[in-house]
């Protein structure tokens, strides 16, 4: 993957930065230029909370080549404590024990490796909350 594509997303992937509409409060993750709820164009940068609960999930067994070392791996959509929903892998879990409603926290992980030569892509993953 060309490095600029990874670099451009780092505020979201590294730090969970989102845009909050200063008019209606809608939180855009990733940030947007225009609010899909009220049409306003002013946003303030906020950081998303790092905990939430799983709304839905799947365990992927037939994986794209860059993810085969991790298969079977789970991908889920979680609703964070402020209501924002996002998709990520659910790491560090026994895949058969994942449940809708399960509490998760966000951890910083390597998401894609791009073989032995490519640039490494880091970002967020969910892990089951255990303490």
């Amino acid at each position, binding site marked *: 993957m060309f490095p600029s594509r990874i670099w451009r997303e780092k505020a979201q992937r590294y730090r969970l930065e989102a845009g909050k509409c200063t008019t209606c409060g809608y939180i855009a993750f990733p940030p947007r230029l225009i609010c899909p709820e009220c049409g306003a164009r002013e946003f303030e940068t906020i950081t998303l909370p790092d905990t939430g609960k799983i*709304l839905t999930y799947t*365990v992927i067994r037939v994986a*794209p080549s860059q993810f085969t070392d991790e298969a079977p791996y789970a991908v889920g959509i979680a609703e964070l404590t402020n209501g924002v929903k996002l*998709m990520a892998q659910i790491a560090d879990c026994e895949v058969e024990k994942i449940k809708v409603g399960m509490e998760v926290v966000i951890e910083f992980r390597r998401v894609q490796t791009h073989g032995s030569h490519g640039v490494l*892509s880091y970002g967020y993953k969910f892990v089951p909350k255990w303490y």
Partner: protein
Amino acid sequence: MRDVAVVGIGMNKWGEIWTKSFRDLFVEAALMAIDDAGVDTLDSMTIGCMTGGLFVGQEHLASMMADYLGIKNLPASRVESACASGGLAFRTAYIEVASGMSDIVLAGGVEKMTDVSGDGATYALATAADQEYEVFHGATFPGLYALMAVAHMEKYGTTRDMLSSVAVKNHHNGSMNPNAQYPFKISIEEVNNSVMVASPLRILDCSPITDGAAAVILTTVDIARKLGKPIIKIIGSGHATDTIALHSRKDLTTLDATRMAAKRAFDMAGKTIKDIDFAEVHDCFTIAEIIVSESLGVFAPGKGGVAAQKGETGLEGSFPINTSGGLKSKGHPVGATGIGQAVEVVKQLRGEAENGRQLKNNPKTALMQNMGGSGGSTLVHILEVA
């Protein structure tokens, strides 16, 4: 706007067509449609193709197809809306004829998917999802629909057997379709025990990787009468988009673009779902057919799975869905799928469906729904025997 009819249909055998190239697949289907319509030239052509670039390294494909179709200087364009590219080509051609801009337009679709590895096909198809916020995290297309399936099962109690009954029904129908990629029947047990792809979806919940093309000829009702073909009129066309990323949707158990495209098509046609005799819908995965049937209003939210299990969507059911075998059995050459649906709908409305899958009681009005990505775009068309 002028009244528009489908006067010609063309579709070759879909499947792993090793001997035919991208261009041959398309030209063959296009010639069949031209011959079926009995026209000797076209005013324009619109081709739906999701990603010739990634599958066979070919963009600028409308010009290439026009060239190989042997019609010099034909205005030809390619439209793209992921797996709804065919449906979009159909609508584009419809608008062109209805507007008076052109009289005879070919709407086609083509995809040559087997010239890449399985991983290459997965990559190409995944370009229909949000690259940075879904695919980046390892989501695959079966995975995205699996997320909807789990949400639907959790909310409504939809079961494994309900999903399987969709696949069984579509393979039953497809077993009578000479053009289907997998024209054989399967059992509930076979689906339930097939290889897990992305839980809860198994391989027999998924539509296949397919080479194929299809084409239809659209013209005005007036010209259609002169051609002497049965007149299958397009009475409604609806198009809608939705968030490309699943997690941006308020409800994962409905398909909003399908609901809105259907509403627009119904409003235009002056019809409701009760006026529809049967439908071809986008069953890229079994769960998709269930949710689509609900979002179209055929069944109440959460009741699509039960209805499928009870046989209500079978050939003898109250609302037959995917008499062709659907994407599941007929195959899913992504850009061609929407046009393949039109081919089946026209066959049924003409009373020409092969091998005993022709619906009884002379169906008059049909709906077709073609969807891109995880539902980020949808085309709904309503056709009626004039």
